[in-house]
């Protein structure tokens, strides 16, 4: 299982960079370690959207990645304590009215709250906001949920204030996150134990092998889909690999007839 942290501020990222010994890649600006990566998205939805779009060209291993957005948030004074870490179970976008729901399947020890994502810092009418308030959550969910199922999207927020701060520079952002690194680590361990990776039947190597065969045999689109189906059926039923198909892929057919004949032989071999 891989983990990808997203933080809005470098100050939020620092405790995680230090704890996991992450190193910055000068080309991608991603901080990486053994199975942990981190990206600083910037503050607000537009910056976040732009950085996540660029992430898609830099990071491709989403099928077994848990995305964790961690950062500070404003909190409703009646529902939250400053300095406490909360798990988000619903995200409402104030601008669009859309709502998003991460699946929370694994046990955890945090109090759950909803999160409202806003475009501007809250300076008045703070009591109308229930739970937590941030400026990135909905954008992260909306974009990352195209790559990652909702049970691998995690939103963690440390309440930095009750929406009553006039000078943001007075906040000890790094200190607020640093106080919860152990809890964040325990959540990651929970995901390792739960194993929520995408299920696969054909390995990447087998997919590459079949793709090469498809190209060499110039299979039609229908035949390509059928070849994948037959291969999956064969592997599920027999548990064996597909190396025995290699002789079929060595020579390019000279005609459609020859191609179809070879394909029929493959079909029969995979049905056996």
């Amino acid at each position, binding site marked *: 299982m891989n983990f990808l942290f997203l933080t809005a501020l470098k100050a939020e990222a620092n405790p995680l960079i230090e704890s996991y010994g992450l190193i910055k890649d000068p080309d991608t600006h991603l901080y990486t370690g053994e199975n942990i990566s981190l990206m600083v998205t910037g503050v607000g939805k537009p910056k976040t959207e732009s950085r996540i779009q660029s992430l898609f060209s830099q990071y491709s291993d989403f099928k077994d990645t848990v995305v964790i957005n961690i950062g500070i948030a404003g909190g409703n004074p009646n529902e939250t304590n400053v300095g406490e870490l909360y798990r988000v179970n619903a995200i409402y976008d104030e601008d669009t009215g859309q*709502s998003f729901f991460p699946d929370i399947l694994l046990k955890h020890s945090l109090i759950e709250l909803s999160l409202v994502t806003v475009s501007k810092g809250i300076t008045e009418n703070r009591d109308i906001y229930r739970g937590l308030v941030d400026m990135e959550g909905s954008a992260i969910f909306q974009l990352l949920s195209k790559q990652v199922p909702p049970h691998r999207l995690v939103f963690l927020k440390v309440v930095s204030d009750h929406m009553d701060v006039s000078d943001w520079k007075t906040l000890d952002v790094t200190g607020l996150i640093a106080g919860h690194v152990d809890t964040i680590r325990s959540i990651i361990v929970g995901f390792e134990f739960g194993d929520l990776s995408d299920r*696969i039947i054909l390995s990447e190597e087998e997919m590459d092998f079949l793709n090469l065969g498809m190209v060499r045999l110039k299979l039609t689109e229908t035949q390509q889909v059928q070849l994948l189906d037959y291969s*999956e059926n064969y592997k599920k039923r027999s548990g064996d690999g597909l190396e025995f198909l290699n002789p079929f892929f060595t020579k390019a057919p000279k005609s459609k007839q020859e191609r179809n004949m070879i394909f029929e032989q493959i079909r029969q071999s995979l049905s056996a």
Partner: protein
Amino acid sequence: MSRSDNPFLPDFSHIYVETGAKSYALANQCLTRFPKAEVVEVPDYKSIFNRPGQDFQTQKKSVKLILAVKKPPFIYKSTDILQDGGFKNFYYNTPILNCLYNCDYCFLQGMYPSANVVVFVNQEDMQSAVEMEMDKRPYPDDPLMLSISYNTDLLTFENILPMTRTWIKYAKTQPDLHLEVRTKSALFSAIQDIEYTQQVLLAWTLSPDKVVKGNEYDTPPLDRRISALKSAMAKGWKVRLCFDSVLVYPGWKVDYLKFLDLIKSEIDGDRIFDVTVGVFRMGQDYFQHIRKSKPESNIYYQPYENKDGVVTIPQVERKSVEEFIRKNLDGFISQERIHFWI
């Protein structure tokens, strides 16, 4: 794995309540039943149930509950895949979407994008729709047969929400309404205090032990289902036996012969209302949807044929199932009371 080792939250750890559902009595009953659940308000149940990218089988490890208000249609005409059991006015409705069980061959995993359970809290609206449909049913001399457990296993929920009880009570007020309650549950005990009625058909799906253990996850074992249906018969209820899906695999006849011998030794065939038999079948869209999710089950990786948009086992195997079941039920129940989807 002990309970403390299981990293997953228990089922119904979260209850998502549609804003419009909050004021319904059934919603409050659910929330009271699960006082420790995290309650999350949602504007529309589809905003959580229909999210893209959900993983049905992973969600099955920690199923959530969604409370919603059903919008029309409240009642549906039978489909070709659903067995009507000889009833001319055959309909179904959806008091609940999804099931607490997780059978390999179940179409629900292809039909719905989510494994979470939706309970519709406005059951009265469904009952009003039933009354309207009864007035215009195509065969007015026959009752309207309503399957209330088509997209769920309603009796499984009876200790959580007494919905089967509610529908049986309602049927008793409507002489032209008959109900089919299809189940794999052993929970007849939850409704055994209700006086039986000829309007309600309790239909138990039964399978050999090997199929129960290997393909019908989280369901009660065969002996408990048999015990439940025998209790129902003893109390006078009409009982249907459903052998559906009969699974064909190497050695299936040995397992099903033993199974049918057990049925014949335990149950009085003369007192059974009827038997329905079906093989594995599924609409091709559902089948493909399930395949794309790469389920663990081998069922989705067998050679099938497509019969007018329905994926099913080859005809020669379907015929073999029919002949096998007919032969081995001979003398147990009259042939005209065995209905096949073959």
